[in-house]
């Protein structure tokens, strides 16, 4: 079995043998459920657009919650020292943990497919939009997880990891909406930084390389600095 898979398996077990994963999943689904169903009949549209927005905003809290402990807990309890003196490379450690957190996130997202079924039962839905919407969510979620792991790699304090990733993810989610308040130029640049801006493009069904490159670079930068952080040892 490859080392990445060993780490992945261990992290998945850690998620699902402790109550944390179930607890966080429940809160995530309750939160999304409320904000999906409340405006559903008001809008009177058989569309997932509202639901995708809700899920996307829920990510800002959900992702820091599931990534904060990944590295920082190991640093705090000292298991980090044992882990990195095992015959696994730092890249494998980070990748295994990244895939585990992304998988948990995908489980959460998959459970929201009931919303899509609900909508489909109520009217004609655009299947393509639902597909690209979920694709966009997966990419955006993976990017946020990379940010979360990065924050967790730099500190042994889980609260700090949570707050730092929360701050960065909030910034990425809302920066493109704040652009109009900026009295200066460079709006395109700030718009490009916004994670939701790219999500909207993909959700519309426009799979543009620029959007894919944005998410790929977000994941790469996050994971790159996580690996770098593992080299900082005292």
């Amino acid at each position, binding site marked *: 079995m490859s080392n990445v898979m*060993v780490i992945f398996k261990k992290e998945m077990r850690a998620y699902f043998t402790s109550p944390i994963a179930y607890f966080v999943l429940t809160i995530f689904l309750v939160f999304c459920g409320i904000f999906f169903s409340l405006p559903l009949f008001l809008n009177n549209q058989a569309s997932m657009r509202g639901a995708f927005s809700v899920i996307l905003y829920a990510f800002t809290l959900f992702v820091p919650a599931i990534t904060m402990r990944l590295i920082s807990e190991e640093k705090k309890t000292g298991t*980090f020292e044992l882990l*990195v*003196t095992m*015959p696994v490379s730092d890249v494998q450690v980070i990748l295994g943990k990244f895939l585990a957190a992304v998988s948990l996130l995908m489980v959460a997202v998959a459970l929201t497919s009931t919303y899509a079924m609900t909508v489909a039962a109520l009217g004609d839905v655009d299947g393509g939009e639902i597909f690209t919407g979920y694709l966009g969510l997966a990419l955006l979620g993976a990017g946020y997880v990379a940010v979360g792991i990065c924050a967790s790699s730099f500190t042994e304090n889980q609260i700090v990891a949570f707050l730092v990733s929360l701050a960065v993810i909030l910034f990425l989610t809302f920066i493109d909406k704040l652009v109009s308040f900026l009295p200066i130029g460079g709006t395109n640049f700030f718009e490009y930084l916004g994670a939701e801006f790219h999500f909207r493009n993909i959700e519309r069904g426009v799979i543009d390389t620029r959007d894919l490159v944005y998410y790929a670079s977000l994941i790469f930068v996050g994971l790159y600095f996580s690996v770098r952080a593992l080299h900082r040892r005292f």
Partner: protein
Amino acid sequence: MIEVHELTKDFGETRAVDAISFRVEPGEIVGFLGPNGAGKTTTMRVITCYLPPSSGSVEVDGLDVQEKSLEVRQKIGYLPESAPLYLDMNVVDYLRFIAEIRAIPPTQRRGALRNAVEVCGLGDVLQKNVGQLSSGYKQRVGLAQAILHDPEILILDEPTRGLDPNQIEEVRTVIRELGQHKTIIFSTHILQEVQAICQRVLIIREGKLVFDGSKEELSFGMTGKDRVYVEMRANGDAAEHVGRIENVQEVHVLSREDGVLRLRVEAPRGKDVREKIFATAVQQGWVLLELRRETRSLEDVFREYTTS
């Protein structure tokens, strides 16, 4: 097997390890001594590939710890200070995880687990959560983790820390047994442990290696001299007479009362001057009350080496 050459490690301004060099041969059990903060843990962390050296090199089986890091890690079993473990896993799951990450082939996994569990006496706690175990059992799980892949080299950082006397004895027994087939470096504050387990001793002080030798050599102390204690009924100039005996380097008069003279006689290491003293006493008509070679406790010697 392990070759440390001019190893130096700096943390910012502080120099934790200062140009130390030593070799460990296959099958040796080496005790690593030194006061807190002397650099023991740092040295071990470089050997186990946790910390990169600032300068100098460490080779394990001819493989450089920086260039061939993954190969070196496969050869070493490591128990870090205070045995850090995943507290939310149970013992058997934890050991299975280690077996997987150590890439022990699935066919050998069962045997490796059984062996480690048996050697470390974990049979009764396999299904328990690591977090619920006493510190003695945690230490044993840490040890089981280190020996699981049957490594040639074991690096144990204070393996008996936090244990009660019975547990200490058990862990020592395990280390002694393992030492019959493996190369072991372990650090400790407890000098009896050195006496009980290892053949060779390294003493480190403020990052520098101040002693490297067998534990017999260690007992001679820093001066490297044999000391003989003499108590006898003799006249005034007996001390000068003793001083003229062959090989005697120094004579300290400890006390002189009611005609009883107490002396400490120093001679080069390995030169036994007791016979000559006896012969002189007979010749001079002194009455020997006591004549013995002084052995110093390891504590005394350790203090000599680690305080200025």
